[in-house]
């Protein structure tokens, strides 16, 4: 086998892992393979993917974004609070809110030179306060009318395909294009792999980092909007317990937490792996007492299979 073929094969490992999981579950419960069910599972995964998609850029820098969960909750509140007043404009305001959070993270990381772990944790705290403020500390319902007028693009169904899936695929295509076809995407990879050399080449690294955080904030914001649309409400805790699963699916997909190596489609597959494991346990009928244990073990095994060790010299 040539190096190129091996490389290709290594890249496909996450997909094989996913297929193996799907087939494994189908062996217990053939109903899992029904197209309708597969579409549903994919649709259910999309909010997780959206949240992780932008954060993939940040992780590829070798940084981390811990604010995505708070951002998603916040945009859900902004959206729900403003939809009755502003209609569609509320969508833009909510997205802008997500992007602003990213801007703040970017600024804090770049200009105060604070490690992203702390910076984004702090910005996440601020966003949670904004969410409480915007929502007046409670869940805000989105009326069916507003939902069907303004949010059908996110939650409707066309030709049997849930719109979440369409949104997810559009994001997948767009972000993949940015990561692999643009100079910005290349520089994100470069910064993650050898930041000092990129600096010495006269690249404004701060700008790259800044935009990576903005994309992450924007995507978390979009995730919050889709979540709000699906659940019909905004709430300051809407995206609770999403953070670690989101980062987990980035890594399960095979993106290196140390930066430099990764891609959006891997995150997409990673999100599906996580979702399939989770939902699969319900399908297979694993008792809930054992689910957490099984989930933990499968996570570790999945990563052991999917990460490409030829690209990282030390595993930290």
């Amino acid at each position, binding site marked *: 086998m040539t190096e190129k073929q091996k490389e290709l094969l290594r890249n496909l490992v996450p997909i094989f892992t996913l297929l193996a999981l799907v087939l494994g579950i189908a062996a217990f419960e053939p109903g899992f393979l029904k197209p309708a069910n597969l579409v549903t599972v994919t649709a259910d995964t999309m909010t997780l993917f959206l949240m992780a998609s932008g954060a993939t850029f940040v992780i590829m820098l070798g940084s981390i974004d811990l604010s995505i969960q708070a951002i998603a909750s916040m945009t859900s509140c902004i959206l729900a609070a403003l939809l009755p007043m502003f209609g569609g404009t509320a969508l833009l305001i909510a997205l802008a809110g997500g992007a602003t959070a990213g801007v703040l993270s970017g600024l804090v990381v770049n200009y105060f030179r604070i490690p992203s772990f702390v910076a984004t944790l702090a910005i996440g705290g601020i966003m949670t306060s904004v969410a*409480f403020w915007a929502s007046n500390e409670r869940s805000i319902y989105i009326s069916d009318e507003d939902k069907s007028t303004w949010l059908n693009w996110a939650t409707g169904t066309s030709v049997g395909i849930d719109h979440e899936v369409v949104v997810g695929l559009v994001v997948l295509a767009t972000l993949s294009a940015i990561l692999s076809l643009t100079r910005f995407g290349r520089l994100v990879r470069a910064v993650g792999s050898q930041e000092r050399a990129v600096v010495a080449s006269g690249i404004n690294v701060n700008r790259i980092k800044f935009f990576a955080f903005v994309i992450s904030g924007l995507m978390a914001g979009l995730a919050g909007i889709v979540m709000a649309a699906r659940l019909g*409400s905004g709430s300051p805790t809407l995206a609770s317990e999403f953070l670690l699963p989101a980062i987990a699916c980035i890594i399960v997909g095979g993106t290196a937490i140390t930066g430099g190596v990764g891609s959006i489609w891997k995150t997409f597959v990673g999100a599906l792996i996580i979702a399939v494991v989770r939902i699969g346990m319900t399908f297979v009928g694993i008792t809930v007492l054992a689910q957490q244990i099984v989930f933990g073990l499968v996570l570790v095994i999945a990563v052991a299979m999917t990460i490409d060790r030829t690209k990282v010299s030390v595993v930290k």
Partner: protein
Amino acid sequence: DDMTLAISMRSLSNPYHATFARGGEEFAKSVGLPFEVLVTEGNSEKGLADIRALIARTGGNVCINVDPNDSPDAATIVEEAEGAGAYVVTQWNKPDDLHPWDHNPNYVAHMSFSGVGTSKEITNALIDAMGGEGGIVAIGGILSNVPAIERKLGMEQAVADTDGKVQILDFQPADWNETKAFEIMQAWLTRYGDEIKGVWAANDSMGIGALEALRQEGKAGSVPVTGIDGTEAALSAIEAGEMAGTVAWDPMWTGGMGLSLCHAAATGAIDVAAEPHEHREFYGTGIVVTPANIADFRTRDASFDYNDYWAKSTGQIQYQ
């Protein structure tokens, strides 16, 4: 195929929900049907995805007794159930404008407890234990959580009724978390010291956290603490004279009866469409337990009949 019975709730790692699940299991045993537990882990999306997966797997031949992670989730869950012909009963959380009678027959009922009312009662018990006056500190649940909001409201109403004899020194949310309550209580001891005559907590875990912070300072038992939920820890603390009260919800009943009702609707034992509203949205009985009645509470007959659906109902749910 056999109909599947299921319970969906936040997690198995707290006594309230663990008992809730046990109630469901008991009922399932009594009718000899397969039983399953789903947990949301505090994540609405996961809760929904699991319910969808269960409905897909059973082809809709399922009864689910759900304690939704957040009220809006109820609407989506009901929608899913309707679409697939599954039956659901919801607990605690639902939007005010979502009603079972608008979704016959799949949305069987909503069961809850009067958050404001019971909270008012337990606060009065606290005020009594304080001797009717003085400052209290109050620990709330997650700010935006519906039960947390209701309980806080009830507490505030009870305090307002004292015409200023009792003041709320401070209110802080501890997100239902024991350790957070412990730390907040410590800070309060610095800030207010002996001004604190009573501690109100929106659930027992946080009450116990506050109690342990008091114990650290040798003040356990000298400052009354109340909680809500009726956990074993709180009941023992009441017996030990360290807590002034709690509210027992009877999760065995909500777990078992919720499924029973759901099962009855699914099997046609009752025609939900024909039932009055007070049988579709009703409060259960929350018992305020204090040192005065703890002995009676311990010896009460807690058993109930699965076919006497509304015996423990205390009336139709009221919206503020």
